[in-house]
């Protein structure tokens, strides 16, 4: 009874999470302290203070730098001497902002843990992975969570998920220095080992390809968006703490690091992941695949108008706009008697959020009566009036 106030307060925190969890059957990766943390809060819910304290101490043993766990321990001890009215009561006076940070962290961790995606659902964005892309990363900024997916013969399979922190001012980066995390389709561009970095970046860093073609088109700038670790003495950090990078605990960074392929592994950052059942996911990807195949056919047909209908009026290549592009193709086609195009190893990643585009890459094997080449191609497809159209095309 002594700790009723505290319990009630936490109940508010936890209730949100419970409401969500009822929908989906949770699956636990146990890849972090969340299972322990959730158990502690469950015990507190049930007024089982002694086991709550024991489990908190077990959590501290497993994660000695987990300041959130130390705070909960403080609360549980203080509760033995007086009724508590607030989370982190013993520290609110002296360090209110820090307590608020830890509270945010607790909520973020618990919410993500209790609303895990169902097993047979996949992030909408992973439409198609190339055979050699072994893993994909999808980040949910609202949940402060990074999800790791494995490419299981073309189907993304959930592997693990981790607590992450994002930019101090949230997501949707547009400007250099805006302390925001970009939202979009990116990939890992480099691997920087610990030895080359200061302790600030912890176990290592993986720069990603912000700004991408679309971002540039939208006039977005800035650079140096990385996935990286934390200083060696840090485990706890508030959900919004970086200058735009996606930050993982060092052990978590190490866990994903071995799965990341420079130049290949997609990193898709969303505000709020949309999950699709495998059936719906199949339907979506097949629809786009067939459009891409139509485009390939129409190119082979040498009918420039049929080919051009796959391009948006707002199309831009590196050098040409829509009109210039079509004219160029018309001229080229006029000099040919046949074209044969194959698109191998297609990847398709959908942009999260409002801007509905899909980044498509493939190996293009182009043969014609007077010219042949093989190249890696990258296209941005958008939906215009219900139809998929290409808005950007270039070498990948």
């Amino acid at each position, binding site marked *: 009874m002594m700790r009723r106030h505290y319990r009630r307060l936490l109940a508010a925190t936890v209730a949100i999470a419970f409401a969500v969890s009822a929908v989906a059957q949770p699956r636990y990766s146990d890849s972090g302290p969340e299972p322990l943390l959730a158990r502690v809060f469950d015990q507190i819910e049930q007024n089982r203070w002694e086991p709550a304290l024991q489990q908190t101490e077990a959590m501290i043993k497993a994660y000695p730098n987990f300041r959130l766990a130390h705070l909960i321990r*403080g609360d549980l001890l203080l509760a033995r001497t007086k009724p508590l009215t607030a989370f982190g009561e013993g520290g609110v006076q002296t360090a209110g902002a820090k307590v608020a940070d*830890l509270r945010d962290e607790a909520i973020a961790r618990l919410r993500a843990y209790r609303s895990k995606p169902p097993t047979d659902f996949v992030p909408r964005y992973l439409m198609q992975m190339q055979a050699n892309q072994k893993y994909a990363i999808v980040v949910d900024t609202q949940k402060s969570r990074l999800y790791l997916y494995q490419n299981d013969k073309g189907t993304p399979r959930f592997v693990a998920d981790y607590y992450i922190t994002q930019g101090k001012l949230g997501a949707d980066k547009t400007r250099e220095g805006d302390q925001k995390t970009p939202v979009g389709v990116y990939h890992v561009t480099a691997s920087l080992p610990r030895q080359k970095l200061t302790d600030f970046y912890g176990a290592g860093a993986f720069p990603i390809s912000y700004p991408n073609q679309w971002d540039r088109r939208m006039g977005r700038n800035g650079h140096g968006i990385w996935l990286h670790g934390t200083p060696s003495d840090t485990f706890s950090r508030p959900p919004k703490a970086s200058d735009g990078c996606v930050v993982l605990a060092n052990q978590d960074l190490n866990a994903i690091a071995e799965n990341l392929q420079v130049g290949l592994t997609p990193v898709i950052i969303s505000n709020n992941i949309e999950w699709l059942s495998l059936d719906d996911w199949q339907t979506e990807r097949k629809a786009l695949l067939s459009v891409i195949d139509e485009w390939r056919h129409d190119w082979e047909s040498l009918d420039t108008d049929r080919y051009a209908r796959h391009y948006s009026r707002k199309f831009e290549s590196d050098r040409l706009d829509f009109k210039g592009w079509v004219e160029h193709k018309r001229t080229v086609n006029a000099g040919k008697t046949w074209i044969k195009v194959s698109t191998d190893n297609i990847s398709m990643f959908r942009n999260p959020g409002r801007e509905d585009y899909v980044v498509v890459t493939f190996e293009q094997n182009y043969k014609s009566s007077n010219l042949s080449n093989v190249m890696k191609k990258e296209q941005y497809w958008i939906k215009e009036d219900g139809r998929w159209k290409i808005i950007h095309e270039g070498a990948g």
Partner: protein
Amino acid sequence: MRLSRILSACSLTLGLAVCLATVAPAAHADALQDINKLLKQGQQAQALEQVDKYLADKPKEAQGRFLKGLILTEMNKPNEAIVVFQKLTEDYPELPEPYNNLAVIYAQQKQYEKAKQALEMAIRTHPSYATAHENLGDIYSRMASQAYDKALQLDSSNTSAQTKLSMIRNLIGNTVRPGTTVAVVKPVAVATAEVKPAPTPTATPASTPKAAETKPIEPAKPVEAKPTPAVEPAKTPAKPAANASAEVTKAVEAWAAAWSRKDVKAYLAGYAKDFKTPNGEARTKWESERTARIGKPGAISVGVDNVKVTMDGADKATVHFRQHYKSASLKTSTSKALVLVRQDGKWLIQQERIGN
């Protein structure tokens, strides 16, 4: 500390205390044991019948009434049980168990305020419990603040809120519970360092008995047999105190000087026989460490300034000062405190602390 778990070794379900510490007269013990057996076998109605019969003879008897309260609780008649336990607390306010059981029943009824009051009363049945309870609370808050320090990276050097571990002063309490013996409570060792200095003799007349009371740690120092009359004026007049203070300062300076000239023998002679070694190590070990340290090659200089002497009675003093230490490899300036005692006319160091 959940309510249902508060209760002690011989608890049944519910966390009710089922044993009463009072000793029933031997003749009744059998009857009560039989009733208890019935209760344990789940034959509550019979147990109730028997206990009522028993109480018809001895309506005031505590054991029987307590047992009746238990039976009623078991029979899920909490309100009747409350009446029984309530009356018991009125008739035997010194017994903690009825209060405790009242608290359990109140808690089951979600009457937490009443439950809390009942538990507080239970604790108050013995002053030592209250003190122990308070001390335990102190320990918990200390542990909590350590945890907060780690969580929030606060400056843990701020120990202004040093916990006072109140000691159980009256070793033999006045309110001995019937039929119980009170174990002699040994104050914890921690408390030694925190004994507040007794008032200076000049300030308080007849301070002897009081000083003895605040220092129960000192082994077997019997309180003087003949009590000093309260009216007796201060034993030691002000002037000798001033002299003593000068003597203490001199002793400290001599100690520093011996250290400076690396005169280990004189240095060690400055320490009392019962000197508390800093880490509780054996005196010989400490001495050999000091000898080795001081004997290292190179000059040492130890200076003291800002010396402040506080007399704790005529034969004890605490000295605060700045110690300026310089050796070949180290130069420090620290505040230090020495506790000196007068033994055989000499002021000797009994405790040495860094900081205030």
